[in-house]
């Protein structure tokens, strides 16, 4: 659409405020926020500061924080289940939030993490990635080292020394 023509049409029928809002949507360059702007007004690219603080507090007060589909003892998705299996193999304590229970959290975490899918994993307040990344870290032995960096001794750390992953005990 020709943005200047669009502006002239809208100018005849809308307030200046509406024009500014609409033209901003159609003339902004493609960016990581564009897919969020094309959705409903509630899903804007900004996050409510109070809600953000709750998320900040959750991920910073737990060494391993995960956002999953379902509960730790009843995951609702294969990828979330895989993440939980890996963390349990390493004997790693974690705290989780079920994004299926909270649509606002689900939508917000995509913006907060700049990550479109779940599960989402945080170590010591820092975003690690999703299932693919955690699985890679587990298979390569990196996960033992990354957990050690945040003060968690993995149950597989002795196994890692032998460079052969195997089930615990």
């Amino acid at each position, binding site marked *: 659409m020709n943005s200047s023509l669009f502006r002239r049409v809208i100018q005849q029928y809308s307030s200046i405020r509406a024009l500014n809002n609409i033209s901003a949507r159609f003339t902004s360059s493609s960016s990581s926020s564009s*897919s969020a702007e094309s959705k409903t007004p509630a899903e804007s690219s900004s996050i409510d500061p109070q809600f953000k603080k709750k998320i900040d507090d959750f991920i910073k007060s737990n060494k391993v924080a995960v956002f999953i589909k379902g509960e730790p003892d009843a995951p609702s998705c*294969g990828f979330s289940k895989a993440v939980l299996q890996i963390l349990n*193999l390493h004997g790693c304590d974690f705290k989780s939030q079920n994004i299926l229970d909270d649509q606002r959290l689900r939508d917000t975490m995509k913006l907060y993490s700049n990550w*479109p*899918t779940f599960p989402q994993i945080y170590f010591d307040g820092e975003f*690690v990635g999703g299932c693919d990344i955690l699985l890679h870290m587990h298979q390569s032995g990196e996960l033992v080292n990354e957990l050690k960096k945040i003060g968690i001794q993995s149950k597989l750390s002795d196994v890692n020394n032998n460079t052969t*992953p*195997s089930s615990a005990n």
Partner: protein
Amino acid sequence: MEITKDNIEKKLRDEFEPVYLNVDDVSSGCGLKFDTTIVSKKFEGKQLLARQRLVNDLLKDEMTKIHAFTQKTYTPDEWEKKQQKTITNPECETKTMNACTGDCKK
């Protein structure tokens, strides 16, 4: 544009000029699902998270409609080493949707 394996492949191919690319459409009743393996020099010097963010950004519009998406990203060197490892230890070949539980005994 409809989200298809071919469209996703084209986008990945155009962006990453991969030495190897595989896109599997594993869509099911839950929705659109794709497994991808991308081997590209453009991943050199980048950590895994950065690589996956590149792919996510490229497919950001598709991601709003895709239910599940897995990606394995390698540099050409990493891919070659992985092929060698697979040949010597075929039991280690992990099926895409199944997480390795560390049960392999060697």
